[in-house]
């Protein structure tokens, strides 16, 4: 007994080593399925028409964004309504560097990520002391503020007139990727963010995010530095979002502050995570794929009614599956209890 209470010195292991070591045949199938899907998506690119390719590219983008939001909003429990700030900053960093300084895209990309992370830490340290709606509103304000600053720094960013990345001829620091290139880029980005989330979820850091989410006093009492956990989670999320913003900027070639700081990017991330199921890896994945395909379907088939129906679907899913579709299905499967009406009672007054 004395031995357990004193603890045994054991060597520490890195994230990936740890994850690999804990694989068993029973818990390896999601990773294998994921790998198979990735390979299938790679192959699929040769077979599909440009329209579908564009749609899938946007699906990949949102998979990455939803996974990123889930790290801070789902696992850590800090519902950021300002993640688009990192998207916009990533986009503008790349555009300004490529446009004004002729830096290649691949050199600008890491700078964009660093800019996103630095901004996340700068606003995260004071704002992550706020709880609940206060945090949500403050981050929303930070994103709106960041857009206004970019909008008014006309000499650097071109302001409201937008910015253009040179992509053709001798002016281009990096040749344009074209549709297949961006399909591949966003696919890899999505795969990396899913893999990162999977490994994080079962790591020490993953557990500390969950502890912070559940109860910060209790987390502190067992030795978790809650400030560091929150800021790091915010920073990791920002890094993915800024990276996505950088690729998006290059893909768009020309854009305005209102495009890349559009609050509806943030809202979509939140919706995808919540509807899929927050605090899980599968939730944001299913949410992003499902919602992006659904909204495309609605746009094509319902014309001017599509936004109305989209809003109604959000309302219904929130009411009927408040814990998210993936988690509802998982729990229902485990408990053999499928009643949706009982599910509604969960959070009812």
């Amino acid at each position, binding site marked *: 007994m004395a031995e357990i209470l004193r603890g045994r010195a054991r060597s520490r292991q890195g994230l990936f080593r740890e994850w690999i070591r804990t694989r068993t045949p029973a818990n390896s199938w999601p990773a294998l399925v994921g790998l198979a899907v990735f390979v299938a998506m790679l192959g699929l690119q040769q077979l599909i028409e440009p329209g579908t390719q564009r749609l899938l590219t946007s699906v990949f983008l949102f998979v990455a964004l939803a996974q990123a939001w889930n790290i801070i*909003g789902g696992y850590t*429990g800090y*519902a950021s309504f300002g993640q688009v700030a990192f998207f916009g900053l990533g986009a503008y960093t790349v555009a300004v560097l490529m446009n004004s300084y002729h830096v290649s895209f691949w050199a600008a990309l890491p700078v964009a990520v660093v800019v996103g992370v630095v901004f996340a830490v700068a606003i995260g340290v004071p704002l992550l002391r706020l709880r609940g709606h206060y945090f949500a*509103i403050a981050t929303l304000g930070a994103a709106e503020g960041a857009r206004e600053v970019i909008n008014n720094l006309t000499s650097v960013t071109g302001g409201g007139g937008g910015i253009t990345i040179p992509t053709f001829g001798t002016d281009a620091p990096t040749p344009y990727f074209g549709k297949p290139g961006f399909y591949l880029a966003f696919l890899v980005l999505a795969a990396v963010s899913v893999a990162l989330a999977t490994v994080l979820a079962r790591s020490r850091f993953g557990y500390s995010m969950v502890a912070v989410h559940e109860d910060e006093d209790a987390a502190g009492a067992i030795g978790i530095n809650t400030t560091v956990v929150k800021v790091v989670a915010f920073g990791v999320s920002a890094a993915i979002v800024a990276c996505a913003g950088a690729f998006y900027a290059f893909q768009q070639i020309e854009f305005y502050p209102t495009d890349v700081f559009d609050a509806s990017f943030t809202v979509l991330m939140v919706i995808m995570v919540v509807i899929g199921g927050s605090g899980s890896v599968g939730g944001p994945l299913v949410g992003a794929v499902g919602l992006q395909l659904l909204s495309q379907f609605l746009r094509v088939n319902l014309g001017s009614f599509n936004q109305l129906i989209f*809003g109604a679907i959000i309302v219904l899913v*929130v009411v009927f599956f408040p814990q998210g579709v993936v988690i509802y299905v998982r729990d229902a499967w485990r408990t053999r209890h499928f009643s949706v009406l009982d599910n509604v009672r969960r959070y009812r*007054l």
Partner: protein
Amino acid sequence: MSRFLQAAAYGVVQGGLLGLVAVGFSLVWGVMNVVNFSHGALAVAGAYVAWILNVRFGLDPFLAIPVVAVALFAFGYVVQRGLINLVINAPIFLTLLLTFGLNLVILNGLQLLFKADDRTIDTSYASQSFAIGAVNVPYGRLAACFLALGITVALALLMSRTRLGHAIGATGMDRGAARLMGIRARHIYAVTFGIAAALAGVAGTMIATVGSFNPTTTPGQLTLDAFVISVLGGLGNMYGALVGGLVLGIAESLGGLLLTGTWVNAIAMAVLIITLIIRPSGLIGKALYGGRVEV
């Protein structure tokens, strides 16, 4: 100097109106801990009710106010009872999302019904003004500002003097205890949301009278203003909303005078964030629930 005074005067009357936009939003947030993304949409819905009454029946917008208030109250009551109450105990981003979805439905519904055009309610007096020295004060805005003041005071009295007000306040502080005292929380929440919707509708009517509105950009702007004002004034604090509205109104009109471009918006956001960091309970009063991690 006179330009400065003119801007300040405009800021004051505009601020009163903004206070009315925010007071219902602040009430809902303070009592139920729900941030209502559809608040601006409700205001615009109210504006359309008054606009129709004006276009079809020639009803003066100030006389249309009771109709707008009743219609929006009923809508708000039903929304809370039938939807928001169902997820009221869920993590906050669910209520945020629910009201966001609602916002999309209302906005796009209005857009399908009325097109995306800018509308305004024309009256003979709204654009007339009188002069105090070098400062012009438009009648319409002044009346709207006084109405906002009157309604805010009436609401504050309702909260502090009536049984209903006490029930709302008690439910906001401790729902469990309030229920034990026999307060029907579901009903009280629905009434609270109904009141907030009615106030939004009235504010929308005033905005339509002194300016213009549309279903695409107006709601988002109003919701954002309501956020900022509620944070400045402190949640669930009626007078706080008025003070926050005045601060924002004056700051925006003076800022517009002194700063180029849209820097004034950036500064408004900076003020919002700094207020949240150093005084999450708002400039006056205190919040009903904890806004900050302790220690």
